[in-house]
């Protein structure tokens, strides 16, 4: 089985990076890279539309049996999408293109920059479409390299510190994850890296094998190892401290990718692995720690929101708000314990939150980047009255901000109401606490909008230009899905629904 479509999608950016390496003129590099990400976006849209919704399951399988030719080593090159990963591939395509557009003003070491950015996109896409655990891990790790260089070379503030902090946190998580993966693989009853079962390809995956397996390590321990890796990435309190630094110091496009896509790897892992594999694992089930997930989620939401209220740096503010909003993903996941009684509303909400938070926060970072480029400051007290001078940026920012605070009609509300409705019957207290985060969100978003965009124009900021047409493309491109989801969420929910259904046993 090898349709090659997914392989193309995964490696197109990397191939483009190779071409970029051979280009000379900086302007050519920029436009070629942007063009490549646009083609990539078109491919992901085609993929999203071509996925057969009546059939469901894993589709577009690319499989090379033994790509590592060692006798008995059962690692495969196995790509495929199902309802869970399909929207996230689309998300990566969207934000990848947005990030490339947001980079068209980069003037330092242009070639290197775009090479790293394109490799990053390949790595993240690879994470979402890999159905072989080892391959998944490899892509997961590859993503670190470009991130490290992108932050430390093109960042601001304390780039080296933040880049290193990001790498150390993620690597620590990865170390745990690797142990978990190996413990599963080395268990005689499992002895496979297949993350899902694909009946038509004759693949029997870990979720199906784990219930009867005599595991090498206690199931709870394996779960904890894997969970830590995802919790760092998500990030979940108290493993969140890398995020504000990395986001704040990264260049705009990298913040967009980081908030928009990289955090989603954690949420995806949580749903695919933590939920998918540990519902009936022997000796330990995810149900047993659902209360803990709910509690950590509630803490993340409120803690993140309260700290967001204290931030005076625009990017740092949005970074902390991500901590708060990603808490909703875990809150939704915690409803797994009663999925037989209350249905999959919470889990679907969690998946939706991955997508909506991705576009919304991506858009916020994009616009903050534009404002920063013009005013040369992100310190909120120094800003003010920008709306009069840059109405397009202000309008876009207000839209994204309102979506972030959960305004109905925009994407964020859909995910949040689904998480709340789906989780309230199971973890009432955690949901009530988490829902209060919405009130706080209104506080920090509107406070920021007021300070930055409203009020009289500030003289010391000088003459400011509104968005250039190249800037407008990604803003409009991200605003469209936010509105589309807000008004008619069915097109996305119906896809996620199939993926979630498949992960349940």
């Amino acid at each position, binding site marked *: 089985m090898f349709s090659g479509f997914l392989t193309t999608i995964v490696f197109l950016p990397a191939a483009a990076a190779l071409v970029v390496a051979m280009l000379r003129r900086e302007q050519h590099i920029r436009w070629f890279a942007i063009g490549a990400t646009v083609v990539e976006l078109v491919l992901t849209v085609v993929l999203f539309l071509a996925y057969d919704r009546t059939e469901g399951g894993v589709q577009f399988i690319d499989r090379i049996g033994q790509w590592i030719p060692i006798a008995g080593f059962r690692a495969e090159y196995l790509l495929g999408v199902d309802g869970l990963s399909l929207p996230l591939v689309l998300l990566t395509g969207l934000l990848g293109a947005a990030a490339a557009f947001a980079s068209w003003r980069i003037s330092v070491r242009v070639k290197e920059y775009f090479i790293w950015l394109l490799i990053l996109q390949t790595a993240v896409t690879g994470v979402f479409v890999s159905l072989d655990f080892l391959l998944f891990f490899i892509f997961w790790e590859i993503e670190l390299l470009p991130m490290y260089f992108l932050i430390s070379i093109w960042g601001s503030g304390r780039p080296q510190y933040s880049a290193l*902090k990001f790498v*150390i946190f993620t690597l620590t998580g990865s170390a745990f994850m690797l142990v978990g993966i190996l413990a599963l693989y080395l268990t005689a009853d499992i002895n496979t890296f297949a993350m899902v079962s694909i009946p038509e390809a004759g693949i029997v995956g870990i979720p199906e094998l784990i219930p009867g397996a005599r595991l090498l390590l206690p199931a709870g321990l394996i779960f904890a190892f894997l969970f830590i890796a995802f919790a760092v990435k998500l990030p979940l309190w*108290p493993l969140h*401290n890398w995020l504000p630094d990395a986001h704040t110091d990264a260049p705009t496009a990298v913040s967009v990718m980081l908030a928009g896509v990289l955090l989603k790897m954690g949420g995806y892992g949580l749903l695919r692995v933590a939920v998918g594999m540990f519902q009936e694992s022997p000796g330990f089930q995810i149900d047993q720690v659902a209360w803990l997930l709910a509690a950590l989620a509630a803490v993340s939401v409120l*803690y993140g929101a*309260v*700290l967001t*209220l*204290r931030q005076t740096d625009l990017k740092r503010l949005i970074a902390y708000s991500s901590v708060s909003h990603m808490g909703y993903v875990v809150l939704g996941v915690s409803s797994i314990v009663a999925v037989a009684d*209350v*249905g*999959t*509303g919470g889990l*679907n*909400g969690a998946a939706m939150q991955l997508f909506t938070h991705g576009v919304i926060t991506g858009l916020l970072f994009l616009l903050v980047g534009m404002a920063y480029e013009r005013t040369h400051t992100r310190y909120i007290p120094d800003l003010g*009255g920008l*709306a*009069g001078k840059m109405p397009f940026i202000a309008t876009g920012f207000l839209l994204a901000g*309102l979506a972030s605070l959960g*305004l*109905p*009609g925009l994407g964020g*509300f*859909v995910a949040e*109401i*689904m998480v*709340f*409705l*789906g989780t*309230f*019957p199971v973890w*009432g207290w955690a*949901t*009530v606490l988490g*829902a*209060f985060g*919405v*009130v706080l969100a*209104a*506080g920090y978003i*509107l*406070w920021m*909008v*007021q300070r930055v*965009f*409203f*009020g*009289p*124009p500030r003289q010391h900021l000088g003459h400011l230009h509104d968005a250039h047409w190249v800037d407008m493309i990604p803003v409009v491109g991200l605003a469209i899905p936010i509105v589309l989801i807000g008004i008619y*969420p*069915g097109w996305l*929910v*119906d896809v996620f*629904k199939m993926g*979630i*259904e498949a992960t349940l046993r």
Partner: protein
Amino acid sequence: MTEALAWLIILLPLASFVAVALVIRPFFNRWSIAAGWVTIAAIAGSFVLSLVAAAAVFNDGSIAYPSRQWIAAPGLVIPFGILLDPLTAVMLVVASGVSLLVQIYSQGYMRGDRGYARYFAYMSLFTASMLGLVLARSIVQMFFFWELVGLCSYLLIGFWFTRPAAAAAAKKAFLVTRLGDFGFLLAVLYLFFQGGELLDVPTLYEAIHAGLIATSVATWIGLGIFAGAVGKSAQFPLHTWLPDAMEGPTPVSALIHAATMVAAGVFLVARFFPLIELSGTTMDVIALIGGFTAVFAASMGLVANDIKRVMAYSTVSQLGYMMLALGVGAYIPAIFHLFTHAWFKALLFLSAGSVNHAAGTFDMRYMGGLRKYMPATYAVMIIGGLSLAGIFPLAGFWSKDEVLVGALENGSPVGIMTFLLGLIAVLMTAFYMFRAVFMTFHGSWRGGADAEAAANASAHPAPQAAGGHAGDGHGDGHGDGHGDEHGSHGGVHLAESPLVMVLPMGILAAAAIFAGILVNPPTALGPIEKHFFGEYAAHNKPVFPTHEDAVRAGAEPHFNLVIALASTALAVAGIGLAYTFYGRGQASVSLPAPLAKVHRVLTRKYYFDELYERVLVNNLFYRRFSAAFEWIDTNWIDGFNYRVTLWTERSGRALTHLQNGQIQAYGTAIALGVLLTLAAYFVWGA
């Protein structure tokens, strides 16, 4: 009426929003005048369709169009659809009717404003949201439009966003109402917990009718819904945003205060009345908060010098009446009062805007004598004032009386208490209303904006002194002395407003007179049946049997002559009192010492802004609570990370001593290692 037509009521203004926001504003802003016409045409269409809908309800009874699925996941189905019942019909007519007149007026009022197209885009969305709210069939759908209504008020209150006070007021409105919305959200969650199908209102009504909802459940859900209504309708203790909301353009205030934002709260409670009614506790809470707010807000209106703020307090107070009525079970009188209030309050706000057009300020201390220059505005303002004060036979008289009768006939201690509160508010209402009329129109002209600017220049060296920060954008010294800070056109030109503004005022004045007697007459008047409005609103067949039983009891307005006389006497006394003090247009009245203290408390709004913003939010929450979190984040959590790295580094450094490059040392280590391994082998291995 087909379902498509019903949807069109929402979609027309929505389409006008899209057209103005995405086409006219970005690409044809030079012809922004078109934005006004597009908006008016769309809302006129909605108004006509609303009348058709009201007629359809009259002929066929309530119509529940099919319920569809907005989100459908296993175990989580969020329905949506259209529900057209008498309550919806009344709200439709009020919202689209008032909005239509306001838009026409706005063409004059907003002429030449830089944000002309943007203004009409927001207004279209505002109207669409309100119409969407009242047509909603499921509670999540209501929440959806409810929040959009809040958004539009935010956008419109902060319409002149370069003014710090406007930006602060907009944020305040959104945040305070969102606090209430949290309660609403929890009510939605709890209702869903009782059964996913209950999100659909007709299904919920049936469940209530079948006795499937326990009282305790009804209490909590009712209180949550009421919390949302308290925020939106600016009831105590979430009333603080409404007076500040005067920073928006005056036609916006008219719309917010008459037919959209604040009316939404009353509508919501009315919509869930069958549920709320199950719980005596919830009903009492609603009645008491409503009654208290009626007096509390009116008392602040007594001393306000800003004409729009007087109206704002009046709105809060009148909404208190409606809540009170709902709380004592007088459902029909509440809706009736909502209906009449919409017309005369819109009229009063538009009059205030007209006054501002001439005087350039909203501060009544700088007005006076305007009746000479603007007789039409004077006349309609008197009409609106009399209607608000409840003078026979104007619209306000009929509805206010029914509310009072309802409270008294409730008979319980709460009923009596709220009845008395209602009576006190009657006196206050008449006083503040006519104080405003006299200060504005009587006496002699005191210079308007020019005089105010001169006074401010001598009082505050810096012209921007009154704006500033979010927390203290109001009340340095005397409550509301910043007429020039909000939405005023600046510049004095003493003349009557143009016809495009006066005409809508005239229509509203007619409504303020006749919307009571002709709509809900105590006896049949020619073709108009006796108690037409009450019968109509109670006419709920065939969809919701329960609702009708509950409601019909209150449908008959037991006209009570004693109460009518008493309340009229109080109103007349209030007007007389106002005339005594302000009849010759006095700008201020000197008070004896103890009253001056009361006056100060009232002008400072009972210090609620200080309590909320300075004490609770700033000091307690921001400086202490969230600062503590930040400290923990830096010192404990990130501190732990830091210590881990520190110890890693230190232990690494310590281990570097082993790798010192001396071959001798390495040789020793190797030899020792071999020896130890051998020793171990001999001891344990063999």
